[in-house]
């Protein structure tokens, strides 16, 4: 354990303004990518359902 208390941890030895954005940006990118991938899947599923519905209407 390198830290004595929370404040010390958050201060990162004076490098907080560089370390935390680096980790935060990474986390943000992960969150955005997860949301984007799930949205893509939902979008595909929606268009598939729409397609199947319209095919049901077709006489063939």
């Amino acid at each position, binding site marked *: *354990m*390198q*830290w004595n208390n929370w404040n010390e*941890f958050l201060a*990162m*030895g*004076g*490098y907080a303004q*560089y*370390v935390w*954005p*680096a*980790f935060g*940006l*990474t986390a943000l*990118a*992960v969150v955005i*990518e*997860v949301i*984007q*991938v*799930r949205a*893509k*899947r939902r*979008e*595909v*599923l929606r*268009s*598939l*359902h729409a*397609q*199947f519905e319209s095919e049901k209407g077709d006489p063939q």
Partner: protein
Amino acid sequence: MNTQKIHWFKFSSPQNFYFLAGRMWPWFAVLATVLAAVALWIGLVMAPVDAQQGQGYRIIFVHVPAASLSMFVYLVMAGWAGFGLAFNTRLSGMMASALAPTGAILAFLSLATGSLWGKPMWGTWWVWDARLTSSLILLFLYLGFIALQSSIDDPRRADKASAVLALVGAVNIPIIYGSVYWWNTLHQGASVTVKGASIAPAMLWGMGLMTAAFWMYAITMTLVRVRAIILDRERHTEWVKHAVE
């Protein structure tokens, strides 16, 4: 193109791979989460402070995995692309296009964290350091791949054209990197190196585990994305109808 040959590659059928990927991705997601948690604990809490760079060095726990993986993902992408061109398998192109966005995000992260690391070390956000410049060029290559893919309407043609581009890019990467490093040494640019001797075991562990976590994450994203792509491209087949309903 001999159709009999294609069946030898068992899971290269999009249908089989769709279900296989569906079973696999949750495991990779769990692995990614666990590995990332452990790596964060080691990297942020356990690892000792660096003698030269103070606590600021902890950025490498995300920078190095992102940088190495962004490079590697491009090669994997080119590998799938080349396989697809050679054997005319449908899945290969889908895998390549599923890998590209993740690779581009990793290249961007490598660039952004590299810049955040450079600021306290060099005093400016951006230095035309060989590694930063290479990351930037890699990001351009990813963007070119994605742009070409999305501007061709016919998916089969888009796959093939971007496969050629990915292969050309992969052949050029060593040349580009080599020239950029050479250019950098000529101009005596700034460069930050982590000296091998100063790396404590905890640092190595943190970096190794985080790299593994990034790998698992990239695999998870690719599998989930390729499933959506498969459904989209195979929308007129019976199995998709059954799978969705």
